[in-house]
């Protein structure tokens, strides 16, 4: 088992791109080796060691590596990008693109995550105890597939476009979400504990379940009647009928 603890040396004001903070990059490496990994601050190339203090205990491969982020990472982007194994524990908030394209392992966040957390994720698990911003589990600009596999859990709220262009996997938001969750959804499952508005527009496949109130329904769904899912009765809709979509939308 290898545990790597990272802390900002000082307050980070200019955003940092740190896709090298990942068990795949840290596994089996010494403190020195980790410190020398590249990071970008604004348009300046720098190293993780310049920006963060790094403490390594034990040694092991990516699957046996736990990364603990202490302090404020709210200006640090792309943490855990593409990770395949291991664990990242984040004690505060993080910037955009957390766990983008990850295919395995687990990321756990005590605070909030900025936009595009779990973007184009393929597998693994992302747990956020605070709130998520826009495009949770979505595809980046123009991409036809967002999240493709794995699981995202948000215990707070999320903003607009949860799971946009989602093609697989599962997203659970305990609180409310902004408008258009599951926009252009093409697979996978989104469960919203609270309220939302205009879910599932342009949906061609996949499932959306809304347990709270839907402020506004898009007029592109066909009501199929009542149906019970896991013992709870919902109104079942299918659509988007304009695109001959086979998406399922369950609303209480």
């Amino acid at each position, binding site marked *: 088992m290898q545990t790597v603890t990272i802390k900002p040396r000082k307050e980070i004001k200019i955003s940092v791109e740190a896709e090298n903070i990942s068990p795949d990059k840290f596994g089996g490496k010494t403190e020195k080796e980790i410190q020398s990994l590249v990071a970008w601050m604004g348009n300046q190339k720098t190293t993780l060691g310049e920006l963060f203090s790094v403490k390594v205990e034990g040694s092991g491969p990516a699957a046996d590596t736990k990364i603990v982020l202490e302090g404020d990472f709210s200006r640090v982007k792309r943490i855990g990008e593409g990770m395949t194994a291991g664990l990242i524990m984040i004690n505060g908030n993080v910037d955009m693109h957390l766990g983008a394209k990850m295919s395995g392992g687990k990321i756990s966040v005590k605070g909030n995550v900025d936009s595009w957390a779990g973007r184009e994720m393929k597998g693994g698990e992302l747990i956020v105890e605070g709130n998520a911003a826009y495009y949770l589990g979505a*595809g*980046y*600009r*123009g*991409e*036809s597939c967002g999240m493709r596999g794995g699981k995202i859990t948000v215990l707070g709220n999320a903003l607009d476009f949860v799971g946009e262009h989602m093609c697989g996997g599962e997203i659970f938001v305990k609180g409310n979400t902004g408008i258009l969750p599951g926009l252009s959804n093409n697979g996978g499952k989104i469960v919203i504990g609270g309220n939302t508005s205009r879910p599932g527009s342009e949906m*061609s496949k996949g499932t959306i379940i809304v347990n709270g109130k839907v402020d506004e329904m898009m007029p592109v769904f066909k009501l199929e009647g009542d149906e019970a899912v896991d013992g709870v009765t919902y109104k079942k809709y299918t659509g988007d009928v304009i*695109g001959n979509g086979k998406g399922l939308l369950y609303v209480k």
Partner: protein
Amino acid sequence: MELLIKNGAVFDPVNGIKGDKTDISVKDGKIVNNVSSKATVLDAGGRLVMAGGVDAHSHIAGAKVNVGRMMRPEDSRSGISPRTKITRPCTGYTVPNVYAMGYRYAQMGYTTVFEAAQAIMKARHTHEELEEIPIIDKGALTLFGSNWPTMDFVREKNMDKLAAYVAWGLLASRGFGIKCVNPGGGEMWGFGKNVTGLDDVVPSFDVTPREIIVSLMKVNEMLGLPHSVHLHCNNLGNPGNYKTTLASMELANQVKASKDRQVMHVTHLLFNSWGGTNWGDFESKADEIANFLNNHDNITGDMGQMIFGSATTMTADGPKQYANAKLLHAKWSNGDVELEDASGVVPIYYVKQISVHAIMWAIGLELALLTKDPYKMLLTTDHPNGGPFVNYSEVISLLMSNKKRQEEIKTVHEAVHAKTKLPGLDRELDFSEIAIMTRAGTSKVLGLLDTKGHLGVGADADISIYDIKPDQIDPSVEHAKIKSAFSSAAYTIKGGQVVVKDGQITATPLGRTYWVDAKVPQQHHDEMMKDIVRKFKNYYSIQLANYMVQDEYVSHPQVIKAGAIPVEVN
């Protein structure tokens, strides 16, 4: 500046050189008989030397290329390379940024590329991009096939006015030749319709695709343009369309060439050689198309080879693109260019295990392998419709190695066995044939063989050297080496200057833009302009005075003169 390339294994089919160790002398951007002792010597070390590559059909600049960029931000996430001291940053795979177009062609050893379709009204945009594409020489073909003036003059059977319109349209667009895309279909798309064959009548104009094609061929030869009519056939992309393609190719017999070249170039034949009646019984008819080409000498084609993976289809064939977007549930952009055709852009992903895609892939290769004379079947991917041009090395290695083809066939949908003849074709092209499909043939088809596509005295000093020793390689077995060498030239020399060394850009001179200045009798021009003035007054959204591309937009012009000559019609 003088340059002497020694010890090259030269393949120059135009001058009958097949791998012989031939010295090449270069002075002031041209190939000359000999140079002084002060010349810089470049030792090719027995490696493969060819004329710089010439691409006769690619979409590298202009309105629809840029629409592709705008609607595909995801494409720009690939192909990223940072700026260097002499190159700008690059992005993109199917729709690269403007600068990458020039760098990437040069890195493959290509030095001349023709944009295959510009509407006159959008030509200023085309030239704005062409001006910024570094290194390569270029030009653009101008769309005439669904233009209102074209159809009016065809209906009136007034070839003098049509010739005058083409001459004026080429000037207005600083264009190089006549492109004709799904003639009539672009106009009908304005009303949500399409033409289905050569004899459908375009309403309000009372002309047929057949009449449009034949008339444009006639005036092309009346004007003695360097290139022939460049035809994107009706019914492109529909199962069973090979019949329309054959019927269109038959039309070439009605016109005699004014020069030593074809009278019709049928482009991206991969998309026009389709049998069957639907996607279920879809099959290759590449053999029928190749057979026709083998028996006719007035017509040429290009492959439009498909490359598995991401592509962006872009064409003036607006109705086809609407059908594509519906079929693929894909993003779709539609364009209407007022009185001049339509357009559409749709991304696509070609998948090995989809039977239709596997058959399409095979069709392109069948066309190249079944057409006996490589001068009649040029190598293209119809970039980025069949796939991005950076994959030419993949196509070359497939054509040179049956072993590679058989390995690939094992990985694609089994339909290639029943629906195409590719598995049984054992022809392997040699370096001379590749040089023809990528240099000599493309230059001949474009009408530029005097200065492009060969290494004889008087030719432009556009030269590529590849890291292969032809006498020591078996392309059939060592196809991976062939692919790697053709993807990244050891040297690319443009106008006598080394622009690429070991695959890296070393200089970024600006290339020239070819366009054709065709003269017609003043009286024909004046009569034609009366109609044009009326059309601008009544229909165009812009003023005639703002229409024409000014010289400022073409700062490095290479003007080819042409003019009205009598044409013999069979």
